[in-house]
């Protein structure tokens, strides 16, 4: 994956436009707010649904919660192309690994595969990923792999451009030992707050709850998001 130019994003030839507007030359980004919370028995993950190219919303109903394996998902933020490619590579490697081991993969294995890839190609990639899921040995686990390729396990992780606005809310309102329903409400509210304040986050809030029993996905439409007294 050697790159001859040193820059992270090289400009395509079509940059020198006359009739083509500016935003077509921008790379597609998931502006984003992403979040994941552990609870006893699983994890709850959430993301907004906005993908932008410059100032234009290329996709207002994006699904940023990408399956890596049956009980392991990742939330993607950063460059849409980079994160989609990384998720594909890791899903393939994890699938092969689980066939070889003859058992479902562990969340920390998936997280490590992400970290290896993101760290090795850190100069070329722009990807901030939260890996979360359930496995038999560790229960619900959340790992965060931010830009640069660090790996750390956290009980609650937030990421993306909208995360800056909800650190305070998350620190104040997260309590260990919440139930699945409480986690879902907590995540939904946090996403709504971030989407309210961050221009690059918006659309609908997608939620997923992963437990031993399986996966429950839900969507909170734009007009059903919780509203706040200041707005």
């Amino acid at each position, binding site marked *: *994956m*050697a*790159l*001859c*130019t040193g820059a992270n*994003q*090289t*400009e*395509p*030839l*079509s940059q*020198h*436009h*006359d*009739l*083509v*507007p500016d935003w*077509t030359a921008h*790379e*597609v980004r998931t502006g984003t707010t992403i979040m994941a919370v552990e609870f006893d028995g699983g994890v709850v993950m959430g993301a907004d649904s906005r*993908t932008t*190219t410059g100032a*234009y919303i*290329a*996709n207002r*109903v*994006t699904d940023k919660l990408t399956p890596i394996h049956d009980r392991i998902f990742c939330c993607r933020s950063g*460059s*849409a*192309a*980079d994160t*989609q*490619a990384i998720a594909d590579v890791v899903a*393939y490697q994890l699938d092969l690994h689980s066939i070889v081991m003859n058992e479902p993969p562990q969340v920390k294995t998936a997280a490590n595969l992400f970290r290896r890839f993101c760290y090795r190609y850190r100069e*070329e990639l722009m990807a901030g990923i939260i890996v979360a899921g359930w496995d038999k040995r560790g229960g619900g686990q959340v790992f965060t792999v931010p830009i640069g390729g660090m790996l750390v396990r956290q009980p609650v992780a937030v990421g993306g451009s909208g995360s800056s606005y909800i650190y305070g809310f998350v620190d104040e309102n997260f309590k260990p030992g919440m139930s699945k329903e409480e986690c879902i409400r907590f995540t939904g509210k946090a996403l709504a707050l971030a989407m309210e304040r961050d221009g690059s986050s918006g659309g609908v809030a997608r939620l997923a709850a992963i437990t031993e029993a399986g996966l429950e996905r839900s969507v909170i439409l734009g007009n059903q998001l919780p509203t706040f007294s200041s707005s």
Partner: protein
Amino acid sequence: MSLSYVLEPPASGFSFENSTRNAIVENSLGNGNVKTPSPLKTGTTIAGVVYKDGVVLGADTRATSSEVVADKMCAKIHYIAPNIYCCGAGTAADTEKTTEMLSSNLAIFSMNSGRNPRLVMAANILQDMLFRHKGQIGAHLILGGVDCTGSHLYTVGPYGSMDKMPYLAMGSGDLAAMGILEDGFKLNMELADAKTLVRDAIHAGIMSDLGSGNNIDICVISRKGVDYIRPFQESQFKDKRQRKYKYKAGTTPVLSETIVPLKLDLVEETVQLMETA
């Protein structure tokens, strides 16, 4: 990873060896006054819509080279497979060659495996290739078609990002086209409504964007087959110029005639016997 279709070996992107040489040549040409020709771009409005029985793709037909219209009847809806077509916006050469490469890869895959290609496979091949080239290939594509799993519409960006949606617009006129699509789209539309909606979307792009214009092409893909209507609607501003100019012999008068015989000397003669048995 062994892939049954891939012709192109995974290389590490473009080689930029000649870029310094090109810069020197460009500067030395005519003391820096002469500019190298800019790449031909399709200014473009392209759109696609999933309807009840399949997919409707639409495109304008103008290709621009800076401010000049280079091609008034450019075909932007490219054939990929009998059940898959792809609209391309961006650099004309890139969209053309990328779609040709995709088409040949899918044909090889079909022959190797005996299976019909699926949209998701086509989208994956495109995404794979464009991501590897890191945005240097300026191809913004809308891929649409019908396969055994249903009707699908994908968009693939030049950096390798992919989105799957029921309606899409790309190109410089996509803001105008998207406005029409957002307003008029409904799930499971009838064919006539879908064609009208796509035509309206491309028309909005043509009206509001300088880089789009001339005629509107429509391609309808359904389980029954493909209906490629080119042009679906012609521009009102058509000119009467002919493409071919052929004149009768004797139209141009001959003023004078000079004949110069070429004196040739025989230098060498070889004889080779042919076996005519």
